């Protein structure tokens, strides 16, 4: 049974290198008589503050909000990238994350090799990967291109590959950021269908998007975010 629970979760980023954190400045401040650490106060960006959220199987959550409202940070926190700086986060179930499909693609490796690398990183065994590879190639519709280095692909083709790999394993929780920019119309339709398959198997979908129509079509719950807070749900 998949579930996600956030209790009073905050995520704040220290921003180093925004003018104040180099060793040189710290040293300079200490030898020029400036109080040590006075000038090196780190800028902190509060990306999420005090979020409460409970999700259970069958929930399809839409995240809306302007740029920088914290949607992607929330997705990443759910994926387990950021450990909340405060609050409690519990998650049950395996995760497929499509936050930035291009991340983790090796440009010089071929499509097939990328399937293997990404599959491994997602926790599959070599056997599983071997079994799933034909299916993934088929779904991506890349044909002979799977044997070519990814650097020869167009953006759309790369997205297709990434999407096909990430959704090839059955996951309980699907995290997505703007997924309809995946490819041409035919592929988008295929992708949408696969999405629904995954979610209908008693999973959870969390989708961040700027398109109200998409959210209305795919989601049964919506939260509106602003400045790292949920302002409306």
């Amino acid at each position: 049974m998949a579930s996600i629970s956030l209790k009073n979760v905050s995520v704040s980023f220290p921003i180093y290198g925004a003018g104040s954190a180099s060793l040189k400045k710290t040293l300079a401040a200490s030898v020029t008589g400036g109080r040590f650490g006075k000038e090196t106060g780190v800028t902190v960006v509060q990306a999420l503050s005090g979020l409460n959220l409970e999700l259970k199987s069958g929930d399809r959550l839409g995240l809306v909000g302007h740029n920088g409202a914290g949607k992607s940070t929330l997705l990443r926190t759910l994926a387990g990238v950021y450990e909340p700086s405060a609050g409690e986060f519990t998650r049950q179930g395996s995760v497929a994350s499509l936050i930035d499909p291009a991340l983790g693609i090796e440009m010089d490796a071929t499509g097939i090799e990328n399937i293997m690398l990404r599959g491994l990183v997602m926790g599959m065994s070599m056997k599983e990967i071997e079994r799933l590879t034909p299916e993934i190639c088929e779904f991506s519709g890349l044909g002979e291109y799977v044997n070519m280095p990814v650097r020869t692909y167009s953006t759309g083709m790369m997205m297709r590959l990434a999407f096909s790999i990430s959704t090839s394993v059955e996951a309980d929780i699907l995290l997505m950021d703007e997924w309809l920019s995946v490819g041409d119309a035919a592929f988008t339709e295929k992708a949408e269908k696969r999405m629904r398959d995954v979610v209908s198997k008693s999973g959870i979908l969390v989708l961040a998007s700027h398109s109200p129509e998409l959210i209305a079509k795919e989601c049964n719950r919506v939260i509106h975010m602003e400045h790292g807070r949920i302002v409306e749900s």
Partner: protein
Amino acid sequence: MSQVHSNLHRSPLADWWEGTRRTDIWWTLAWFDIVLRYRRSMLGPLWLTLSMGVMIGGMGPLYASLFGTHLDKFFPHLALGVIFWGTFSAVVTDACNAFVGSSNYLKQGYFPISLFVWRGLARNLIQFLHQIVLYIPVAIWAGVTLSWSVLLIIPAFAILIINAHALGLLLGLICTRYRDVTQIITSLMQMLMFLTPVFWLPENLPSRAKYVLWNPFAQMLDLLRTPLMGGVAHLHSWIGIAVWTVLCVSIASVLFVKYRRRVVYWL
């Protein structure tokens, strides 16, 4: 199939083991690092072997006459020195980039960070195996005779791996937080190369300068090099390295426990 993930429920040790256990992941990633780096070249990683061979071949006769030693004594010393130093320095510099270089994975989902330290280490091991073959013709030419003491290379190598891993965690974390440290380490390694008997013979050192041999790299080199040349490493090297290992592992553990989940914020 269902697994619980929580920021509260995983101990540091379990986190470390989770990354260590998946040998298939880090070994494959390391292998691909090498394959992709040299994909478009014919000799691949052997290029490094070749350039190292040229360097050893060129320096051997010159330095042997500079130091006034016989070439058949000096050549194996130099070859092993250069090969092992190459590995040490690659391990240390890669350690600084362990997490920065893997940010595309770390930003994608939850990963135990020890995985990426092993990845860098495995990559350097693969390189090392390409280079150590250089020693075979040198040893045959110089007529090196091995005794049973050569078996001491096994514990020495194990110590090398432990230290390299601990140093990887330690430097990886520090260098991700303070980016300047990478530069400091790089220049420090350059300086240390001259303070370590890579090229020169420790016997030539005047006794008041013997303290130079207490640097951990010199001791590690002694442990690895001497058995392969048919000798027995100094006792002080074993003691020094043991102390150093304990120190290194403890500092690495403290930093790992404290900052292992924080490192993603610094990327």
